[in-house]
């Protein structure tokens, strides 16, 4: 067992977010769409007075899937924002080493109880909009 991760479900698949980058987990609330923003942007959200962008993890990863039920507030460096996911599964260690993948948003993939889990690269996800990757 190694570093701790929050496992989430998005686009019918499983993904893991490093615990150090997760600030809090909230129920999916009222989100204001931002016309003109990239498709992966769900909109902006008011978390106790802080207006933050909420990204749709499934859309960013090019997946479809059910409507989001949770927002995971994540941060990396100066950037922070909400990630809309279907649900949060659990918190636990994930085995290493990672299998490489070709997604720019993943550090790699692991098998947890025979289910493939993509380990999210938070830095890449949060800077996706500024680098234009998600436009």
């Amino acid at each position, binding site marked *: 067992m190694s570093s701790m991760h929050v496992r989430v479900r998005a686009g019918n698949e499983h993904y893991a977010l490093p615990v150090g980058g997760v600030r809090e987990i909230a129920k999916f609330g009222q989100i204001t769409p931002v*016309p003109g923003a990239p498709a992966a942007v769900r909109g902006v959200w*008011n978390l106790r007075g802080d207006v*933050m*962008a909420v*990204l749709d993890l499934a859309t960013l990863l090019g997946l479809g899937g059910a409507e989001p039920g949770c927002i995971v507030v994540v941060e990396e460096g100066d950037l*922070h924002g909400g990630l809309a996911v279907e649900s949060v599964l659990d918190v636990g260690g994930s085995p290493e080493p990672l299998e490489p993948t070709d997604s720019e948003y993943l550090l790699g993939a692991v098998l947890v109880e025979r289910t493939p889990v993509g380990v999210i690269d938070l830095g890449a996800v949060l800077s996706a909009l500024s680098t234009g990757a998600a436009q």
Partner: protein
Amino acid sequence: MNELDPETLAIAREEATECLERIERNLLALEGGSDDPDLIDALFRDAHSVKGAASMVGWTQVSLIAHGIEDGLEGPRDEGRLPKEQIDPLLKATDELRRAVDKAGGGAGEEAAVPLSPTVDSGADAQPARSTETPTHKDEQRHMRVDSGKVDRMLDAVGEAVLHRRRLEHIVGERVLIAGDDAAEEELDQGERLLDELQDAVIEMRTLPLSTVTAHFPRAVRDLASAEGKEVDLTISGADTQLDRVILEGITDPIVHLLRNAVAHGIESPDEREQSGKPRRGTVELRAEQRGGTVAIQIVDDGRGVSAELLERANELGSLTDMLTTAGFSTAVEVGDLAGRGVGLDSVKSHVETLGGSVEVRSEPGRGMEVSLLLPVTLALLKVLLCERGGQPFGLPVASVREVITVNEAASLGGQPCLEHRGETVILGDLAAMVGASPPPPPLPQPPPAIILASATRAVAVACDRVLDDRELVVKGLGPLLANVAGYLGAGILEDGRVALILDPNRLLEMPSRAAPAVAPQAEKRAAPKVLVVDDQFSVRQLQRSILEAAGYRVETARHGREALEKIAADPDLEMVLTDVQMPEMDGFELLGAIRQDPEHGALPVAIITSKGSDEDKRRGAAEGADAYIVKKEFNQQALLETVGRLVGG
């Protein structure tokens, strides 16, 4: 270099003090037994920095003492060892250096600290000295440095408290009213007043007077005027006008640009002025005044203005403002030397618009030109008109709203719906389509309400589902993730917790013109050459920046060679590099070598500014392929500008 502006001097002094503190610390560490050769390197570098900065700002004594210290450290640096017996003399020299800096900088020196403010003397009768007050004159100007982030967090918290109070009133207000409980009602009112006061106080903390950025303007204007062979007086009025810190930072460059335009292109040569019956000295005025929630900053010159012919054409096409602020205008219209009047006005406009402001230009041929920047006083609190489209709330700055109407009759012009408003034809748009909402919301109600947005030069009607009320919102940014999304000034939080996007009226006002034919054909525009200034000292960077910018160049800066390489790789606009030699991380020669080996930027002109001017330095520079040398001791604007002009051919 005898009349440096106080700001540059203050920076130089602050920096020298920092270096001094570090020198002392490092000397003490070495005395305490450390044998880290990096400490000796750092000592050498700091002494060198003090010397360099001092010679540039003309502090001869400081420069001499620092030079002495530097000399004394040269041997130890090469050997990587500083003998203990040398430390005490070095510490003494450092004290001497500090005294010299204080004296030159006029800061902490004993004499300079004597307050210059007149003592209160209320009349002829000799008042007995009020002994309780004597030692407290310092309290009058006691300031506290507070991180701006802390003020913003406080503002957020106050904003939340305001919303909370509104929710509370929403829940209990009606009950209180029905119950006729006067005491409770009074408490609710009192709460509102207190919170409003608190909010105002915090917002005031975010504002600063315009004078914080105008200090170096007179000098920049004077230098440019003399370089152009013109005589120009700059007068500044309303410098105490308060503006939001963020706005102040954002408008400094546009103002400098406009001042430069006025001097370079507006004011005529003394002879030409005399011939047209004007005083030989031209006048450029920078005026600022608050008008309600808006601050107007005007740059007015009494120069030649635009030609009558140009003005006529502008009126045919729309307005002078539109014409001059359209990208590519300046080279697109061939009107000799008047063409320069539009240089960069498009970028001034877009700059000001990102701050929620607008630009207006007026000119009388032969009489001069007036450019007005209209800016909000604060970005923190904005009066907006709320409306709804597709169930989503949007805010529009009230300052841009002319009227709210019901669209009973719409016509069509060139396929674009429009309506008649106060005798002019105004284009009508659906808010959802204007912002690009997808999927499109249900159709508008019939007849729909519309908000008429207007600037000085155009108007547009924005149709929505319903118009709510107007209110003051605490404006929050959309955050770094959405920094690239255009069209919004920010967002505000409503009582019910929903987020309302605040629309940038300028974007909506531009809608019609996007469809309309362009005012002027886009011609290839040659922007001012961009120079990269590399120096580890802020004061030196600032000094060179102000000289180069006053001469019309664009300037980028880097703190050392490594940063310079990053900037060169990232910015294809850079046309030359001006670098210091002694710098941490990567020095000037290493930078030069790295540039020459770079297949893409190998030909970039590089000028080296050296404090030594030794033949060895010159040989090394020549071997590495330097294009020019400027010796710091002989440093003057003329030499710098000549070298830069030669290398970029600008």
